[in-house]
């Protein structure tokens, strides 16, 4: 199934391997949202197993992409376990109109990764977990699933078109979990350059609006 999808995509346009895989997973992203809804509504174990099979290895890869303070070799397996248990427990609260399963699961994963690293590197009692910062009211005008899907498709394709240095900085920030200051030290760039490069990348993707365009 994977190979047939990949080949359909490569027929449309020549793409590198990574983009082909991305498009492939994006094509099926509605499927993941449907599975997540089933887990939430009917505690569907088969659906959960499918989610696990798809997201487990990705989450483990995500855990290993960040070598920040507090990293330990077992982080990957621990993260997969903790995130997937949270997915099971929180699935009933999943709102498909607000975010796709991929966005939703990565929000959980991001919070888990931060909290696990923090717990390892910090001996003080931390009263707030990272997910406590994401308890915000539901919007009155939710984005419909279709709009949301369309905008995620757009995110996909615009990401693949970024110049190398902008792609690199976004990966540092989101995948490796580096702060702007850490990225600036690692890349040997002034902090201001890092800040503006991140903004430029997101402007190019039309995620944020440039100051001139706002006026």
């Amino acid at each position, binding site marked *: 199934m994977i190979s047939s999808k990949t080949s359909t995509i490569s027929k449309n346009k020549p793409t590198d391997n990574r983009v082909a895989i991305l498009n492939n997973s994006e094509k099926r992203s509605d499927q993941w949202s449907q599975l997540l809804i089933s887990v939430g509504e009917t505690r569907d174990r088969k659906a959960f197993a499918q989610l696990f099979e798809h997201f487990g290895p990705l989450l483990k890869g995500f855990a290993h992409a960040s070598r920040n303070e507090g990293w330990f070799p077992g982080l990957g397996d621990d993260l997969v*376990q903790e995130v997937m248990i949270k997915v099971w427990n929180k699935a009933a609260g999943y709102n498909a109109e*607000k975010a796709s399963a991929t966005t939703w699961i990565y929000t959980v994963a991001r919070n888990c990764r931060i909290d696990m690293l923090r717990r390892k590197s910090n001996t003080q009692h931390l009263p707030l977990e990272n997910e406590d910062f994401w308890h915000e009211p539901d919007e009155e005008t939710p984005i419909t699933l279709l709009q949301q899907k369309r905008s995620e498709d757009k995110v996909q394709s615009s990401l693949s078109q970024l110049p190398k240095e902008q792609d690199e900085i976004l990966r540092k920030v*989101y995948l490796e979990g580096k702060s702007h200051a850490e990225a600036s030290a690692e890349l040997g760039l002034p902090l201001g350059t890092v800040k503006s490069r*991140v903004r430029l990348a997101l402007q190019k993707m039309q995620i944020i609006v440039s100051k001139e365009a706002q006026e």
Partner: protein
Amino acid sequence: MINNTHHHPDENMLIEFSAGTLETAASICVSAHLHFCSRCREKLLRLDQVGSQIMSQANPIEVADNAFDQVMEKIDSTDLSSTVEKSTAAATTAKNTIDEGFPFSVNKLINTSLISKNWKRLSSSVDVARFKTGQDNYEVALHKICAGGKTPKHDHRGTEYTVVLKGSFSDENAVYREGDFLIREPGDVHQPMGSQNGECICLSALSAPIVPTSPLGFLMKPWLRINPM
């Protein structure tokens, strides 16, 4: 919720917040602002979409064959009914101290991490309640300015984040209302004043003591030290 906020965190702060790399004290303030500001919530959702797409580009790494079974075992061994009971019990006991209008993270801090249960007087018009937040760089606290209360004119030695949680205050530059997010850097001199129509409560994170610039500065002794915890 109607969006009345006019002062927002800048885009790089939202980006770092979305990536989870913003330091704790600043994250507390950004999350408090998000509670009030639908514009920034929408921006954050878009940033989260980007983040999730990038995060899903991590090279997959095979998980152990029994990983799924282990997860199911853990799920099955958790007695669901007991967790439900526990959370209802927690919700009832916490009810008294929860302010509906406050952000979740602030209510949680109020319930778990106040250093003293009572407001502490800083000056005739300002009270403070400090939090223990498990980090060493910022003092995180609530400040209450009484209606019409004047605070001494002061400069800042470090960064100060402020979010208005209730009421409003003003300084030489503007009026700040519920949800407004402010950053003050060294060199920013201001003299906040509480609005006449009621007390104002602000959340703040302060990385260094403020510096009085007015002749009455000696009245500010309690302001002159911070206690990050």
